[in-house]
């Protein structure tokens, strides 16, 4: 298997240097960027497998980069990376097209695992992201859109629940009596529902599910 080609997008040079050192043995860093414009140029220039994308960037944030590549066929896999683990940061990034979300405190092994997973077209849900997504789809009945796309199947819910409790794919498969590949399929389906249920604006979507505006600090 060839080494994974990665573009690193973060406005903190120090953090990029740290990630580069951590990934040195397993991945090839083919580009670095500090702003969305630089990131788009670097991605177009180097055609990487995976883009590690910071959420909080100047001039539009990570979402601006995701929007630029939305619907373009040979786009790289995006893995969102942030110090924040607040739902209002996590969920919009995944909805805008990121295949996974990790916090910057993630250890090197888990980061490499996440990179490999999104590189192969799978989704990477950290336990916390799985919990947020579960919460997003568990809004009270009357608030939920009557769209089939907005519902999770019981099996998808179970898979997500196990992810939130920290189980790896292999063990989820064993516990539910399905193959790890089927677990991946379920997670992929959840990701698709999350990204496709865009009948409403993302913020409205999040608000109606209690992900936004719930905490008193948000209205400052």
């Amino acid at each position, binding site marked *: 298997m060839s080494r994974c080609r990665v573009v690193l997008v973060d406005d903190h040079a120090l953090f990029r240097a740290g990630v580069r050192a951590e990934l040195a043995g397993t991945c090839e860093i083919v580009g670095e960027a500090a702003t969305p414009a630089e990131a788009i140029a670097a991605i177009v220039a180097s055609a990487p497998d995976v883009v590690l994308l910071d959420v909080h960037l100047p001039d539009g944030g990570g979402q601006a980069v995701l929007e630029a590549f939305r619907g373009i066929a040979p786009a790289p896999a995006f893995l969102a990376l942030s110090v924040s*683990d*607040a739902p209002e940061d996590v969920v919009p990034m995944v909805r805008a097209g990121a295949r996974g979300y990790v916090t910057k*405190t993630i250890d090197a092994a888990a980061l490499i695992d996440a990179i490999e997973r999104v590189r192969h077209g799978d989704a990477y849900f950290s*336990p*916390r992201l799985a*919990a*947020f997504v*579960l*919460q997003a789809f*568990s809004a009270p009945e009357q608030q939920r859109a009557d769209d089939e796309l907005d519902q999770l199947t*019981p099996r998808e819910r*179970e898979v997500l*629940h196990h992810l*939130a*409790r*920290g*189980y*790896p794919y292999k*063990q989820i498969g064993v516990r539910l009596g399905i193959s790890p590949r089927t677990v991946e399929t379920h997670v992929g389906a959840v990701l698709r529902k999350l990204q496709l249920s865009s009948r409403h604006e993302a913020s409205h979507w999040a608000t109606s599910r209690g992900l936004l505006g719930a*905490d*008193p*600090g*948000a209205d*400052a």
Partner: protein
Amino acid sequence: MSVVRGGAPQRWHDPAWRATAMTGATLLAALGIALAARDGAPRLAAVALAAGVLPVIAGVLGPGAVRALREPGRRPIAVALPLTIVLALVVVTRMERQRDVVLLAIALLSALGGLVLVGADLHQRAQRAGHRAGRSPWQQMTTTERMRAFPWRGVVGALLVAWAALLSLGVVGPHVRAAGVGSIAIVLLVGLAGLALVGVPVLVGAAARGDRERLAQAREDERQRVAAHLHDSVLQTLSLVQRQASDPVAVARLARHQERALRAWMAGRPELRSDTLAGALHAVVEEVEREETVDVEVTVIGDRMLDDVGDALVGAAREALRNAARHAAGASVVVFAELAADGASVWVRDAGPGFDAAAVAPERRGVRDAIVGRMAGVGGSATIDSTPGEGTEVALRLSAADGERR
């Protein structure tokens, strides 16, 4: 304090400028009509003069006066400038009646002074309202000060304006009898427009000033609040980190503790609240992380008030966490909690070595009892699920609701 400068498009967004320009245009039109209607063609030159000078007053001096009014030091200049221009204009157009000119000038001066007084009064009130808004409800209720003081300045200002109006009527009155109703209307219109030209910017400026000061006050309060919090938390931790730089374990622990506290604060949970189950769970995780060197990822969905039943759940979770930290040293520990008013579930999972439930050593059975027994005591349940090599999960549940199937 920033002041709007630049071209007309930018100025157009300034409400004071807009008001001034509109009143200026109205005044110009009214004056033009008055001059043209009274004396006909010979006075075309006067009309042209007015048409040349008034836009300058309306477009340049008016907004300039408003800007100057916002900077307290330049207030006299701001009042004097348009006044001089208006006086000069009056002198030019009404040269033949010296006495009337002086009287009108006095009337104008009085009106201006009155408006400034009214504006200052309004400004002070807006400012006080701003201070009130910055206070807690308790402070608003308990603070005794002369909030409702009699508006002396406002009343004096209004009286001055009224007197100026009377004076103007006295000057204009004799001419009015000779002229028709149309002339009276025009004179009144011109007078009102002139009043508005000066008054509207003053009033708008006063209101805007009050708003801005209120906003600045709120920003400053917020900055001080954030600074105070950072001082007590982050700066404190950073100084501890510097002092303990030789002990990497201690530094990592401090950083983790501070990170969690900062996240909680940013998420709007000021401190770990001890009166809710979610707060108690976070506190327990932190406590175990401090005692045993272990890194716990905790996610809590929902919340409920902490009661005796919740206390038992928290106690059982603490035991499960300690267990995980001791028997799965170095492995990651994940805590996931789903809390609601009608039920609560907590999962504590470690990716450690696991064990065979059938061959549990007696001393570990004791720990199990501390978890299972505690939950059973409040009508809940606890299940321990472990496979050698696959880690261990302790599931704690309150009420019959099965969170996994919900």
